[in-house]
């Protein structure tokens, strides 16, 4: 086995030597930390592992997803597994998109000072401040489009001096926009009809009668959709 190249990082102030070229999340696990929460898909999609770090010689706090960012020599880090941020209750089909509905549900957007700190914190390179501004003036489409890549990690809300809940706000905008403006996708309509006609009822009944071991075997033997192939 070739000798592994190690790099020194600091987790909550304590030094660790970890293999170079691995992600922050892998490095923390290598150092002995165990993620009970704050880790999910490990592929940069679920947004569970928002993290902050600082590099030696840089005054700035940097932001990333722990499962995506590689460790670097002298990196000081910790895990920010969760941003407490209340989400407004709403029923999509009861909302009137023509009204200032985003402002009604998230009035704190009127506290935005345009400091742009949210944008700088976004690991997905979203123009977060721009969509907050669009939300303030009721431009649902612009919020939905600008925020499309949001994975709800919550780092924007963690950093905001005005305590805005950006990621909940933009999720609401995307949902509402998709319901009110986007054409209904044909494949969804077809699948809903299929379900309504009971196309999978027999299969579901069968599974309900199976034992746990039989279910495990069924799962292990399942057919996985190939890339580019629609089921």
């Amino acid at each position, binding site marked *: 086995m070739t000798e592994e190249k190690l790099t020194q990082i600091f987790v909550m102030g304590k030094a660790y030597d970890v293999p170079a070229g691995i992600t922050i999340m892998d490095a923390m696990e290598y150092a002995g930390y165990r993620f009970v929460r704050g880790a999910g898909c490990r592929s940069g999609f679920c947004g569970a592992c928002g993290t902050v770090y600082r590099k030696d010689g840089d005054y700035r706090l940097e932001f990333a997803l722990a499962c995506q960012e590689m460790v670097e020599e002298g990196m000081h880090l910790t895990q920010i597994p969760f941003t407490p941020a209340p989400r407004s209750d709403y029923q999509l089909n009861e909302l009137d998109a023509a*009204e*200032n509905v985003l*402002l*009604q*549900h998230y*009035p*704190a957007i*009127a*506290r935005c000072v345009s400091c742009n700190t949210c944008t700088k914190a976004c690991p997905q390179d979203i123009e977060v401040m721009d969509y907050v501004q669009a939300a*303030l*003036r009721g431009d649902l489409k612009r919020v939905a489009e600008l925020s499309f890549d949001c994975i709800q990690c919550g780092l924007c809300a963690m950093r905001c001096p005005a305590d805005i809940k950006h990621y909940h706000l933009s999720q609401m905008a995307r949902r509402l926009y998709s319901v009110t403006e986007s054409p209904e996708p044909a494949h969804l309509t077809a699948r809903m009809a299929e379900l309504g006609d009971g196309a999978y009822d027999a299969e579901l009944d069968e599974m309900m009668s199976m034992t746990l071991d039989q279910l495990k075997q069924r799962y292990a033997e399942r057919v996985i959709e190939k890339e580019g192939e629609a089921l």
Partner: protein
Amino acid sequence: MSKTKAVSAENLRARVEELSGENVFACYQCGMCAAGCPLADEMDRLPSQVIRDLQLEDITLLDSNAPWVCASCLACEVRCPKGVDLAKLMEALRQLHLRKELDHMSIDDMSHDEIRKLPQIALVASFRKKTG
């Protein structure tokens, strides 16, 4: 009021002058500001008394509603013969509270219906003046 205890009778005037950039002793109590203030009737002390209380470092000024009623309309500012910007003093008094997160209104208590009708400029202004 515990959070504003860093402000005392001894430093009230200094803090307000520092934040506002105004000299409260420039005022000679002519009362022009109070006479022209459209909202003075809602205040528990007149605008001119606010300045007097600052001159005298009356710490009870921190409990006055005057700074919260003042809407920075600047009727006083354009009429003051001594060039005192009372709106800046009022802003400084609000800031003494707001910088300690002592909000003067609750955003969470607003109903969707109330917000629906209001122009954005009302909300932005209100939150800037009354939340920290």
